[in-house]
Structure formats: C-alpha cells, structure tokens
C-alpha cells in the first residue's frame, strides 16, 4: 500500500505503512483537480459535494487545490461561493467550518472559453502557481464535465499549454464522462482524440454505476461466498434479467437525448457493465489488470440473439398517469415531436461460454416506467422433479436471486415455502438482505469513491478503451437495425414498457419480472 502519484526508488518502503494497518485510510498524494464545465449540474450536484465529503473524511491531501474553468466573469470568491452553496446543499457529510476553510484556501477560478488561447495560458499559470503555493506537486486531474463535442478543443488546449504533459514523477490525468461516442466508430475516434493527448493509463472514464457499493458487492457476493458460485451457471440458471428503470421523463434534457436514446445512454455502459460483472469468470486477483481482463473476456463472448426483430424491442412513452400525476408524452417535449429516438430499449444477449451456454440475458431500460429501480435478477430453473402434486405447487414460481442496485440496495432471494395449514401447499417467499440495515446508512457516494480513485491512480473501477469499444460492437447491429425500422412503439407512461417488449421475452418462453 502506498500513496499513489509518487514514484519511490526501488526498494524503498514507507516504514509507517503496513498492510495489517487497516485503519489507515489511503490519502491521495499532493494534487489538484481542474473542472471544466464547473457551473453544470454534474459539477454542482456530484463533484463538488464529493470533494468536500472526501475532505471531511480526511482523504484529500493537505494542500489540495480545486480549479474551476468556465465562461463567467468571476473572481475566485464568486466561484468559492458556488462551491460553498453546492456543498451546503448536496454534501453527504455534515458541514464543518474548519474543513471548508481549508478546502476554500485551494479554490481558484479561471474565466474563459475553450477556444481562447489566453484563458488556457491563464489556467496553466494558475496551475503552476498552485504547485508553488499549495504544493500540489505538479499532479493534476482534468475533469471534463462538458459535452464530448468540446473534448477535442479542450484537449488540444491542454496539450498546447503543456498542461497534459507531466514532468518527472508528476502525473496528469483526464476524467471523462459518458457518452463515450455514439457507436463503435465514433467511440474509436473519441478514444483516439483523447489518447492523442493522454496515454490510456491516464484516462479515467467515469461510469458512476461502478462506484456504487452494491455493484462492487456483486463481486463479493459471487467470489467471497461458497454458496452461489456452484449454481452460477447454465445448469441452474434459466435466464438473467437486468433492468434499469427510471420514473422521470426527459424533463428538459430532450436536446441532449434526441438522437441518443435509451440503448446508447444506458445499455451500452451501465447495463453491459452489470452484465460483465454478473457473468464474468473469477479473476485471478482483484488487481485492475485481472479484473479488466475478465470483463473484456466476457464482453468478447457476448453476442446479440438473432433475429433482431424478435429479440429486441424499443418504445417511446406517451402521455399517461404516472404515480398520481398526469405526464406528457415524449413527443410533446419541445423539439422532440417527430423524433424516432427511443425512450425504452430491450435487447437479448447470449454469452457464448461453457458457463452460460443457452442462458439468455435480457437487458431493458426506459424512462417513465413504473418506478425507479435498477436490479440484476438471476432466475433459476425449476426443480427438475417435484414430488408434489401440481395443485400443491401452483403458486410456486422459479427461484430467483435479485441484486438490487438502487434504490434500497440489497439482495433478495425468492424461494418456495410451505403455506401454514394442514394441506401441503408451496408458495413463493422472499428472504431479504438490505444494505441499509446490515451496514452503512452512510456509505460513500459513487462519485466520492471514483474521484478518490482518480487521485490515487487506482484504475479498477474505470472501464478501459477495450471495454467501451466491445460494448459498442455488441450494440451497433441493434442500432443499425432500428435505424431501418419504423417509429418506436408507444407505451403509456407509468407502465413497464411497450407490448413488443413482452412479446420479445415471451418468444423466448419467459416473462419479465415486475421489479
């Protein structure tokens, strides 16, 4: 265990660190973060609060610096005020004046636009100044909380000003958010543009799902227990359903969403990552290399089930009643009225390995569905022989293990149990584990974990190039197929998607679980 960011001479061991000393938190080495798009929602609601929470937990290095860059006529104080308000409103941990005061000392603001050379020169001198004043040691992360269309110009500026090039044992890292392209070709282009300036090991792609405790818990559940792994294969598993449902509509994001749609927005990244974690083989170790290796292997083996007409479904929500309020259909959103962009997408995948042969993976996501929920449901086969009469087991479904990612994180197991009474009658019951009751009401936010990992240079939880490109390779045929089809099928807001989704899974002889 060593603080990342520094390269100690070979053989040097920090005498104060010891693997057995589990209390000691890993504090990031001296460093700073530069945020582009600092006035945006992501920055205000997630990044800045996460930074404060890290500071409050004592995990940021002394002398940490935060630089904002935006087209505003602001002084450092104005920016500090924005950060202060964001922290006050959204931070998870209580506000403490002394922590804020220390964080505030390192807050800087650089006004300017992306195509203005002078403002980037300013940025470079502010960063150099911070190295002097705050001792950030030339270690800086650049967080691009901006639309991907602006990446090339910002990256070019970073390269021009020398900000992207670390000297000696310093580091420079770049953090980017989804979407990582809109198909395989554009993803490659984007990767090329980014890798042109930052080498792949300095690129951190945020998929905030991977920062969630429950997602990491999939690995613990599978590989730390003896109980599940023996049945985690096609002998026992009938099929897997991975669902991410949102109850909100586009609500003002129509401009961003038009032309992207549910499959690109969610399936390509979050759901395929969940599939990879659910289906991958056991990694040799939890080192970033082994983990990614296994994820890449399983993604390479993942194929679409054909024909796409029957194994995929898409839809657009129409006006309806959802949870007691009347909501508009997506086509009534401004600028969306003749869009063919889907707000619901479902696909069927096969994982061509011995472990998963013949086990379909159904992935679905959508907006304005019944409720907000993300889960991975592993549905088991029926017992091969039931020594009961059919009347006794009429109400017995298939055993299921459901990993709830959000909300109400936890794991549910569904199995049959005898109904009390004189007759032998078996019915489904559930056994429920809730994270909230067994540990941590106060578990760290995904962004806290991911930001800290960026500063520590710990890459396990960030998808690499290969994963992003493999995911697009899986999804591309569907997108092309849909582009040739008619409009997406409408579904009433507040329901679980269009009838074609039900037809799709019925063709495979299964039914959707109601999450």
């Amino acid at each position, binding site marked *: 265990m*060593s*603080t990342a960011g*520094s390269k*100690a*001479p070979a053989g*040097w061991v*920090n*005498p*104060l*660190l*010891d693997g*057995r*000393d*589990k*209390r*000691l*938190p890993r*504090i990031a*080495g*001296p460093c700073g973060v530069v945020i582009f798009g600092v006035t945006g929602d992501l920055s205000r609601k997630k990044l800045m609060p996460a930074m404060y929470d890290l*500071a409050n937990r*004592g995990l940021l*290095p*002394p*002398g940490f610096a935060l630089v904002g860059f935006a087209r505003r006529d602001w002084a450092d104080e104005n920016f500090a005020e924005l950060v202060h308000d964001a922290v006050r409103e959204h931070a998870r941990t209580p506000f*403490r004046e*002394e*922590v804020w*005061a*220390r964080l505030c*000392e390192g807050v800087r603001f650089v006004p300017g636009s992306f195509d203005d050379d002078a403002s980037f020169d300013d940025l470079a001198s502010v960063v150099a100044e911070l190295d*002097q*004043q*705050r*001792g950030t*040691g030339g270690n800086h992360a650049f967080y691009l909380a901006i639309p991907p269309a602006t990446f090339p110009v910002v990256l070019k500026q970073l390269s021009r000003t020398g900000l992207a090039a670390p000297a000696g*044992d310093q580091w420079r890292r770049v953090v980017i958010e989804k979407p990582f392209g809109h198909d395989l070709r554009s993803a490659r282009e984007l990767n090329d543009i980014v890798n042109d300036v930052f080498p792949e090991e300095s690129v951190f792609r945020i998929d905030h799902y991977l920062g969630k405790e429950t997602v990491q818990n999939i690995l613990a559940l599978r590989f730390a227990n003896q109980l599940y792994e023996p049945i985690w294969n096609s002998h026992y598993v009938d099929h897997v359903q991975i669902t991410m449902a949102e109850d909100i509509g586009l609500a003002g994001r129509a401009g961003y969403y038009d032309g992207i749609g549910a499959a690109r927005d969610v399936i390509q990244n979050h759901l395929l990552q969940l599939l990879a974690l659910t289906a991958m083989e056991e990694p040799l170790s939890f080192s970033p290399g082994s983990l990614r290796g296994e994820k890449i292997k399983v993604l390479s083996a993942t194929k679409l089930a054909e024909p796409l007409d029957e194994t995929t479904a898409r839809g657009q929500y129409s006006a309806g009643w959802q949870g007691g309020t009347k909501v508009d259909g997506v086509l009534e959103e401004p600028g969306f009225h003749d869009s063919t962009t889907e707000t619901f997408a479902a696909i069927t995948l096969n994982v061509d390995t011995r472990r998963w042969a013949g086990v379909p993976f159904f992935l679905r996501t959508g907006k304005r569905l019944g409720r907000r929920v993300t889960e991975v449901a592993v549905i088991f086969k029926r017992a091969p022989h039931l020594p009961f009469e059919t009347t006794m087991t009429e109400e017995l479904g298939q055993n299921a293990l459901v990993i709830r990612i959000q909300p109400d994180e936890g794991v549910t197991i569904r199995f049959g149990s005898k109904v009390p009474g004189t007759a032998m009658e078996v019915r489904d019951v559930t056994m429920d*584990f*809730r994270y*909230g*009751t*067994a*540990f*941590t*009401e*106060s578990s760290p936010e995904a962004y806290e974990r991911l930001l800290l990992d960026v500063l520590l240079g710990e890459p396990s939880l960030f998808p690499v190039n290969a994963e992003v490109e493999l995911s697009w390779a899986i999804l591309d045929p569907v997108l092309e197929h849909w582009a040739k089809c008619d409009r997406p099928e409408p579904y009433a807001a507040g329901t679980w998607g269009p009838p074609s989704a039900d037809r799709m899974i019925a063709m495979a002889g299964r039914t959707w679980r109601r999450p």
Partner: protein
Amino acid sequence: MIVDLPSTTTSAVNHALIDMRERGGAVALGRVLTLVIVTDDSAQVEQSIEAANEASKEHPCRVLVVARGLKRAGTRLDAQIRVGGDAGASEVLVLRLYGPLADHGDSVLVPLLLPDCPVVAYWPGAAPGIPAQDPIGRLAQRRITDTAAANQPIKALESRRSSYTEGDTDLAWTRLTPWRALLAAALDLPPYEDVKTVTVSGAADNPSTDLLAGWLRSRLHVPVRRRTSPPGGGVSSAIMERRSGRVELVRPDGKVGTLRQPGQPDRRVPLRRRPVRDCLAEELRRLDPDEIYQAALQALTEVDGRNGRRGGSAKGSQPGATRDETRADQ
C-alpha cells in the same frame, strides 16, 4: 419507541423484544453485532447511548447498556427497550443492575446477545484492570477501552500495555488515525530518506501522545522522545528528523494542523479532535486483532522521556506481553 420494564428478567425482556417486532414492525434482523456498553448508573449512560446510536448508522447493532447501580440495594434488574427513532439504526436495551447482581452483568447479557454475531464490549469510563479477563470482557471478541477517560490516563495505558490480549483496543489509539495517516502520507513523498529521530509532544496526561510515540518507535526503530506541552490540547506535534530536514505536523490549537516539509509549502489540514462517535464507528469497522496497536503499546517502554523515564531502561515487560526486540538506540 421506549418501553420500560421495571424489576424484570431477561426472558421477559426477550419476550418484549419479539412482541415489539411483531406489533410495531420494528425489525431487529440484519444487525451485524452486539455492542455491550458497561457504565455506572450516571449521565454517562445517555452520552454513551448517543455515541452508539450515531455509530450504529454505520454498523446497525444491538446495544446492551449495562449500568451498574447501587450495590447495597436489593437485587433488581430494570430494563428499558428503545427501538425506532429513539435508537438510531440500532435497538438499545438499557439494563440497570442493582445489589449483588451488579457484579454479575455477564449473566444478564448471555441470553440477550445476538446469535452468531460478534460481541464488542466498550467501557466509556473506568475499565477493568485486565479487560480480557473481566467477566463481560470474556464474552466479547473485541474490547474497547478509553484510557483518556480514566482517572489516571497514563497509568491506565500502562495497565493496557502489560495486559494486552488480542482483541483489545483503546480510543486513545483510535483518535490517532488521522495523525498517523498524515505522517505516513508525508513520508510517501520525495526525498525518500530514513528518519533519524522523532519527537512527539502532547499534554502530560494524554495517552494518545504516548501511543503516537510508541507507534513511531515500533515502525521506525529510531530514538523517539516524548515531550510535554501545556495541558488540554491532546497531541500537539510530531516531528521526524531526516537528513534533508524536519517533517513536522503541528497542531497548536487542537483544530487545524500544519504540515511542514523541506522544499514544500506549508500545508494546513483540518485535524480536529475526534468525537467519541467517530472513534466508535471506526472501532466497529474491524473486529480482528490490531497488531499495529499491539506493537505501539509494546514500544511504549522504548520511548524516551515518558514520565521522566529513559527509554530502554524502563520497567521490563510483564507477563502476557511480548516485547519487541530492540533494534536501535545506536
């Protein structure tokens, strides 16, 4: 919800718990450990419960408070059950023991421990001489004491040292974690040089200062000196001498620390004294023996200037304590 059960028995308490669960839906499943708090029947009871409730947000647990009342009274057990909003994420049972029963808290605890879950004992005030051999301590996998709250903290620390048993831990040690993390991180920067000598300062009766000195001694094997600073501030500074100069972490006001290193600007860090609830939450995070704490305790005898004693020449180790081989003092 608070339910009082005056003059009761443990089976009645268990019965009431199940009853409350069925009627109120107050779910007591999913608890990960039983935390036993041993106090006298004073204001300490409420303070400890409050700390435990806060800690329970991270570790939902059953909290059993054993409050020892008057021994001269007749034998009696008064119980109080708190669940829901009055108990954080835990369920709290306050057990007040009177008369001869006050010395047999363990007998009251046994039926109330959660099945198959670890037991942690915590003495917020005075602790038994040898926690591991205390009847309640024996029930627990982990025993948390707080030498800083003892009447004579340094003497209490000495007793922790001589009687250390795996599973012992002390809040004076927990309070040090941020200090230790900062010092360790400071050495992780260039120049990567060996530390020559160390000086740690703090209030005379502050056991954390002693432990910090002990820890540095056990890790670095170089002369470590303990100095006294004015009372009330806890640990005030730790200075590591290297060839290129000093690595200094000083906290004069008990709130903000300053880290000084040659070739680096001074860095200020929030380094507030930690409230008990934070320490307790950290303690509950791990339930295995803390070898690093053990080594720090054992190295206390090798620290110069503790209570005017010379390092190395201090009292020899006592039974039950294995002393680290002394490598340094060259």
